[in-house]
């Protein structure tokens, strides 16, 4: 009886050992490129349009030079995607060092409703250092086209509750003021902050 028990114990131990060997020799999960920031092989220029920022100042995309920028193209009446994107931007920003040279902004594709005052109140709700600007439809068309953002007014613009369909990625500008890449959704603030830090330090 005892022998039988010992044999069973040895058999079980061998099985367990075999299992562990199999586990350790099994190839690890294949490494895939799961980066959350897509950096273009070649940077692109932004359309040289005139914008009005949230302080009522006239600017051009050249004014973005000097810092990295993460821009989101949306609108303040947006119920779902934009507040989520801006809340994510805030989460990204809080994970970056205070003296970071990465800035965050909203470009409104809805100039009919988004006045400078409204934009200012909207973005600073998420973070006091957030920035916003917009322009007329023609300039917005040119600017969005130059950064591959698409948008479309949906509904009756004579009423106040029309919606705007728009791209849901963030646009990355390098310190030369060029379109360097995009941050596609879903946005994971933790991962984005890590990758942004690496990218902007290199």
């Amino acid at each position: 009886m005892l022998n039988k028990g010992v044999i069973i114990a040895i058999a079980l131990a061998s099985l367990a050992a075999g299992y562990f060997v199999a586990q350790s020799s099994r190839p690890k999960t294949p490494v895939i490129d799961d980066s959350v920031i897509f950096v273009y092989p070649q940077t692109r220029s932004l359309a040289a349009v005139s914008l009005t920022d949230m302080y009522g100042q006239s600017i051009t995309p050249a004014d973005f030079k000097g810092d990295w920028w993460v821009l989101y193209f949306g609108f303040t009446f947006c119920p779902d995607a934009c507040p989520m994107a801006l809340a994510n931007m805030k989460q990204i920003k809080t994970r970056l060092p205070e003296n970071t040279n990465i800035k965050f902004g909203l470009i409104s594709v809805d100039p009919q409703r988004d006045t400078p005052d409204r934009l200012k109140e909207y973005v600073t709700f998420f973070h006091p250092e957030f920035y916003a600007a917009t322009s007329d439809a023609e300039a917005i068309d040119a600017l969005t086209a130059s950064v591959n953002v698409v948008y479309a007014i949906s509904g009756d613009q004579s009423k106040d509750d029309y919606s705007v369909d728009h791209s849901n990625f963030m646009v990355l500008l390098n310190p030369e003021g060029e379109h360097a890449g995009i941050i596609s959704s879903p946005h994971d603030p933790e991962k984005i902050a890590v990758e942004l830090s690496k990218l902007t330090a290199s």
Partner: protein
Amino acid sequence: MRSLLLILLISSVCIACGPSAPDNTDTSTSIEPASTKGSSAVSSAPETVAVASPAGEALPEDEAPSSGTIEFDDPWIRMVPSVSPNSAAYVSITNGTEDAVTLTGINSQVADRIEIHNVEVDAAGTMSMFKIDELMIEPDSTTMLEPSGAHIMIYGLKEPLNEGDMVTMLMSFNNQPPIPVNFSVK
């Protein structure tokens, strides 16, 4: 221990607060169909604990109704800047009844208009929302209304919502009396 914690979490979510129970005292996770009507618009209350698990999980038999209930998990409204008149609300709805139920409308005193919206994302990553008139939930299944997916669209907030506010919304179904559900603002 884990299931006890889960029960505590679940029971802290106020789901069926009618006029007589506007605060967070209801310990039930499900709603017996009843013709109650939501009364309070916004009330301040501690932030609701989010329950991510499927409805009914880890509930003792005597607390888990076998049929005839519609359950609402983690009802919440996205806090938006006060200049934004629109927001979105999310909840996962489990149909524990034996028949398909159809959500036909949502009303609340806090907003001019509330709609059910679905979202489409095309290959280029463009999000577009469109209104759907009704949302069918098959028997014994859960439908998630969640960020970047189908959601409850709130138009024309009458006053800004603050974090921690509770908002009662009256959910209308085709074959059920309307059900008031308390959403927490966060």
